[in-house]
């Protein structure tokens, strides 16, 4: 049985085109790009060419502003710690309660180090309240870090507008955004609507490049200090021998991602919508988290089933060859359900029963039909086992 992989917000399959361009740098062109001999020239040139490609993909910006890193997590660390270091006179950070841990945990760490951090909350749709954001801006606000799209629910945030308001308030406020989930699904243009964003992070493995490579955009003139020290690579802004094959792969993946936005917004969205509709029709007592948000990623479907537990659902899906994920406590390192769903105030009877289905360009109608065929039965069977489900009346009973 072929696996149906619908966990693309966790990681993605490497695109064959990406693997192909990486191949020479894994075999014959293995040189250190910093070396002086002729043989190393192609490695050094490959990195600069990759930088130009990525810069073109992000709105035809000056390539000098692109720094290659090891992951989006590293990019987020570099962005935030680097900004705090460069601006010692300011002591206030604004972020949200629904950030990825690689921003959220940094926020908590900055708090421990003496910064004051405002964690903006979200409403039942998973959206920020704009007025709360405006009121949070202060004369000593140093950095605003708000993600473009949430990895769990796919809810998108108006980063362009938030950045403009920050800059109109105070041009020295540094604006960072984690674009990891947005790239390839939404337009990302740093010269156009995102012109007020100073720092932007993303990773390769969410856009069909391998794990272990990321990128940080640092707008020229941003007050920011390098985070990774110990070498002249990336003009001293990220020390460490460049991961040539992965950087080359990341650039190719970026090109494919930008070209793939119409497919995501069209075909993939239709698949997701079809899946959402069919599951709601077949399964009672289910929440679609983020459904009412103004903008939601076209590939993401976050469901919360009342009265059952998410890990058991995933386990059953896995037995049917379907790879999805959950915000349930039992699938994370902690015993708490997802911080994102908690922040959205998903009802307590459903918050433990969440399942995230995230599609990619490699999913098709057949995959969707498989899920529609299998999932309603899994839910019904688990509900039979649940003390909170009245099987005769087919409803939740507490």
């Amino acid at each position, binding site marked *: 049985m072929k696996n149906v992989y619908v966990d693309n917000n966790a990681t993605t399959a490497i695109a064959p085109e990406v693997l192909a361009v990486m191949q020479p740098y894994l075999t014959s062109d293995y040189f250190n790009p910093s070396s002086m001999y002729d043989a190393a020239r192609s490695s050094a040139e490959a990195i600069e060419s990759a930088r130009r490609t990525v810069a073109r993909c992000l709105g035809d910006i000056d390539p000098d502003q692109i720094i290659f890193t090891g992951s989006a997590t590293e990019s987020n660390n570099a962005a935030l710690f680097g900004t705090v270091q460069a601006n010692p006179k300011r002591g206030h950070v604004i972020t949200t309660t629904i950030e990825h841990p690689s921003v959220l945990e940094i926020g908590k760490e900055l708090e421990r180090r003496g910064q004051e951090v405002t964690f903006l909350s979200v409403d039942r749709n998973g959206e920020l309240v704009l007025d709360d954001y*405006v009121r949070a801006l202060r*004369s000593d606000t140093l950095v605003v870090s708000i993600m473009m799209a949430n990895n769990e629910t796919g809810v998108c945030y108006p980063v362009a*507008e938030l950045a403009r308001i920050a800059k109109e*308030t105070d041009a020295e406020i540094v604006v960072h955004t984690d674009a990891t989930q947005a790239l390839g699904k939404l337009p990302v243009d740093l010269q156009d609507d995102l012109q007020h964003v100073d720092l932007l992070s993303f990773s390769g493995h969410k856009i069909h490049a391998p794990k272990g490579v990321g990128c940080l955009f640092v707008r020229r003139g941003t007050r920011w200090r390098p985070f990774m020290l110990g070498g002249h690579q990336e003009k001293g802004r990220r020390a460490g021998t460049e991961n040539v094959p992965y950087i080359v792969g990341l650039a190719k993946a970026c090109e494919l991602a930008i070209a793939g936005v119409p497919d995501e917004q069209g075909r993939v969205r239709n698949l997701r919508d079809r899946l959402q509709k069919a599951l709601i029709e077949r399964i009672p007592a289910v929440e679609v988290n983020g459904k009412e948000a103004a903008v939601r990623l076209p590939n993401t479907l976050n469901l919360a089933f009342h009265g059952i*537990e998410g890990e058991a659902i995933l*386990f059953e899906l896995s037995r049917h060859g379907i790879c999805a994920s959950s915000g*349930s406590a*039992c699938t994370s390192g902690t015993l708490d359900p997802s911080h994102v769903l908690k922040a959205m105030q998903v009802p*307590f009877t459903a918050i433990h029963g969440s399942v995230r289905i995230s599609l990619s360009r490699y999913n098709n109608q057949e995959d969707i039909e498989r899920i529609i065929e299998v999932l309603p039965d899994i839910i019904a069977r688990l509900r039979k*086992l649940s003390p909170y489900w009245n099987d005769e009346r087919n409803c939740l009973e507490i």
Partner: protein
Amino acid sequence: MPWNYSDKVLKLFMDAVKGETGTHMGELENPDGFGEHGSIVCGDTLRFTFRVERHPTDPTRDIITQARYLTFGCTSAIAASEALCILLEEQGKTPIEALQVSNQDLIDFLDGLPEQKIHCSVMGAEALQKAVADWASKRGVDLAELLPELAHGDEDEGRTVCNCFSVTEPYLRRKIKELGLQSIAEITNALKAGGGCTVCHHAPGGLQDLLDEIWGVKPVGQVEVAAPHTGEQLSPYRLGQQIETAIEAVVRPLLQDEDGDIELVDIKGHKIYCRLIGAANQSDAADQTFKLLVEQQLKDQVDDRLQVIAV
């Protein structure tokens, strides 16, 4: 992280989900013993019922013949529930003997549980104890007299230590001793307490304090308390008043003439955040004109340094 369950756990879970014959999913009607542990808020619940073959004269010699469960929980919680029922039905124990079934017996029966899933087996043992207590009260058996060490019942009520999972101090004290829990991590794995916000770990009267008290370790040090934040600058009251007056007297009537309106969101220094309504559905250029119009009016009326930010 991938599942690292034993084959036994997987088999019990799958059989239960498929409803294979011989599995124990369900709830007995008019059971001789009923016990429930956990809650939907905490993420797992076991509702356990059993039936006995009644001894004609001596209720303490009743024999458990049938056990059933309904479980809201993960793979291992469902498997542990199955294990509990199998153990009881197989062994033909009296309810009082059944109390000897510990969470460790369930773990052994399951060929082990991952550490962070130990609480699934504790849940089984707790639900069983409650069901036996229920049986005892129905059959007029005085458990407290027979087994004084088990007479806790209502004593588990008390101060809540872990708010995330509603775990009380008396319950924690009892289980820490019963299961020999030595660290916060062990408490979390077995009882879930402290697995959420983690505030109770080192709070006064929290998990570490309880451990120290029970196992006789001296507190290592005080948790530092963050210094209170000193207030930021006040917004100029008078300026705010004048801006509001100007908006009411001049700006709003002007915008309303154009089928628009204005909503003041905030004022910080000389920056005025407002929502311009009615300018929507128009081009960006029209939005910009609207904003400039409002800004110019406020500059004229109040202060030349004022700046309008549209939100």
